[in-house]
């Protein structure tokens, strides 16, 4: 507990300052978070974290970054369009000033601090975040995009927090993009809590385009009520080291989940996607597709846990993880983990690690497509199976383009997105 002590001490010493820069709802969870961190600690380098030593990321004392920028989120002055009545896109601080009961009802309820992870340290230190709320039967037509941009000449740790609540019958497409302009090491923890009410529909996409010095530890907790539909897609295009842990609970019958991911790595990047799907009720479906393309000396890990509880009859679950190592030194670990305690279920899983199809490569070269281009086409085709599933058209097209640029090695340059201007 050496590493944890750095942060528990830091917290105890600076508690007042942390509280002062935050709000009551967030502050109310800090004591519990402190105790959880003391008891359960950061992830240990084994089992679920065997291939990603997240606790090591915290070993340099990152200190505290109190003088942070204010988050810009404002339901009234939202860019490019208007939101339907009652929809909230706000900072946690402002939202809890306006409607403390609402934020309090959901904040830090799903995040599981009682396990080695980053939920506790995040709740201990995070001072603000984003709150998105869609009232009953309200459909938000336009996708909402949340941009995280890390830029600082000083290395630091940031603790991001996102809370999304969809009431019964609500519908939302949320795109979260993670960027970094920093040339120096940065550590980002991110906890996202998502409540999806009965019959609600959520499309939640995350895209990471950070830098080689970026460390990202994200935990996403999703709770689905009856007949809700959730599609998630997580795309890691450029990064340093990334651990995304996703926990979905299908709490009531009729809930459907699609959980996808695509990863492109090279140099010595590392991406670890950990997914845990809990079929707590019967008649739910879950379908997972994760694909990795790894080059150079990069490494990847996929751990896919599916739990079907004894009473969760008529569960349908499919999990697929396919990976291509394009270089000899790239490495991929994959571990499907199915625990099925009900008997009337349809569950499948499959994982492969392979190379590009030599026959296809040669066929293309015979038709005049040079080796490098042929490889590119094959890798792109491989990943498109995942990006094609994205239901927000603009994002799907953007992803196609970004994946292509990424594979061509052109994504390290500025894309003129303007986010940092």
């Amino acid at each position, binding site marked *: 507990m050496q590493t944890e002590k750095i942060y528990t001490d830091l917290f105890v010493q600076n508690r007042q300052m942390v509280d002062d820069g935050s709000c009551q709802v967030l502050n109310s969870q800090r004591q519990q978070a402190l105790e959880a961190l003391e008891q359960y600690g950061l992830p240990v380098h084994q089992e679920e974290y065997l291939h990603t030593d997240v606790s090591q990321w915290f070993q340099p004392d990152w200190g505290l970054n109190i003088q942070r920028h204010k988050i810009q989120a404002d339901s009234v002055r939202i860019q490019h369009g208007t939101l339907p009545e009652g929809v909230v896109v706000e900072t946690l601080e402002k939202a809890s000033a306006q409607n403390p009961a609402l934020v309090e009802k959901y904040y830090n309820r799903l995040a599981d601090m009682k396990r080695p992870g980053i939920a506790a340290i995040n709740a201990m230190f995070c001072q603000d975040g984003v709150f998105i709320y869609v009232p009953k039967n309200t459909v938000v037509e336009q996708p909402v995009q949340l941009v995280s941009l890390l830029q600082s000449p000083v290395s630091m740790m940031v603790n991001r927090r996102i809370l999304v609540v969809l009431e019964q019958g609500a519908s939302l497409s949320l795109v979260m993009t993670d960027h970094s302009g920093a040339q120096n090491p940065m550590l980002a923890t991110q906890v996202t809590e998502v409540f999806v009410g009965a019959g609600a529909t959520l499309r939640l996409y995350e895209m990471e385009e950070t830098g080689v010095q970026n460390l990202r530890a994200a935990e996403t907790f999703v709770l689905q009520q009856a007949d809700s539909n959730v599609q998630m897609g997580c795309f890691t295009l450029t990064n340093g080291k990334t651990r995304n842990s996703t926990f979905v609970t299908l709490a009531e019958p009729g809930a459907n989940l699609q959980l996808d991911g695509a990863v492109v790595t090279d140099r010595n990047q590392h991406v670890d996607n950990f997914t845990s799907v809990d079929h707590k009720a019967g008649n739910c479906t879950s379908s997972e597709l994760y694909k990795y393309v790894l080059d150079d000396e990069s490494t990847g890990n996929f751990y896919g846990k599916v739990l079907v509880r004894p009473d969760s009859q008529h569960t349908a679950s499919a999990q697929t993880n396919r990976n291509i190592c394009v270089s000899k030194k790239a490495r991929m670990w994959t571990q499907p983990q199915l625990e099925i305690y009900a008997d009337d279920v349809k569950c499948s899983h499959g994982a492969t690690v392979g190379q590009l199809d030599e026959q296809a490569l040669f066929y293309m*070269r*015979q038709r*005049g497509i040079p080796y490098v*281009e042929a490889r590119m*086409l094959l890798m792109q085709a*491989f990943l498109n*199976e995942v990006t094609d599933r994205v239901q927000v058209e603009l994002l799907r097209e953007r992803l196609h383009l970004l994946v292509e640029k990424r594979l061509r090695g052109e994504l390290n340059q500025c894309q003129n997105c303007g986010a940092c201007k």
Partner: protein
Amino acid sequence: MLTIENLHANVGDKEILRGINLQVNPGEVHAIMGPNGSGKSTMSNVLVGHPGYTVTEGKVTFLGRDLLSLPAENRSHMGMFLSFQYPVEIPGVSMTNFMRTAINEKRKFLGQEPLSPSDFLKMVKAKRDLVKLDAKFMNRAVNEGFSGGEKKRNEIFQMAMLEQKLSILDETDSGLDIDALRIVAEGVNKLKTPETSVIVITHYQRLLDYIKPDIVHVLYHGRIIKTAGPELALELEERGYDWLIKEYEDSEK
């Protein structure tokens, strides 16, 4: 057009081509026949630069250049085409995207501008008509879900699109029904000019009824053991290979 001199090639340690000599002039149609496993596909693959084969001896000149020193893609750019005995499926890559990339890469090699989208579409339409390939195939992934015959038709469509100078057709007739055989063969004949040449690999006379060879070769055990006029194919159809093989083996003693 093409000169092969004493070509030897291995797969691993196993020698498969054991000294092939062949001369193909512009405008000529050559047929290569021979029993299963004699090395016909191996020869084709070596000519188009398949990395799975090692040339151990010999020389190949194509349009005045040392062919064996060129990578597969450049051989294609220069005008060499192989209609594969077993065309490969490429999931996720659409025919249109594949074809556009192939054509524009060739144009780049030749120092030409990329084809405009409308010219490309016009060309696709014309060449599809030539082999009666339905438009729906253009949106599918390359060869994925194509029937055996459709794959072969698709090969000739690609040959037409790329306007190649020397085309090697490796058992293009296998898998084609009677009508398709005629359509594909007529397509090949229409593409034929006094400047282009064709090497037809086949087991059957019926394809040669349509695509009339000037010269017929028999490949056996990695060597060409007999070269004659079109009448040889008819004789083989009647008598099989045994008599030829016996003749060859006697002469080798």
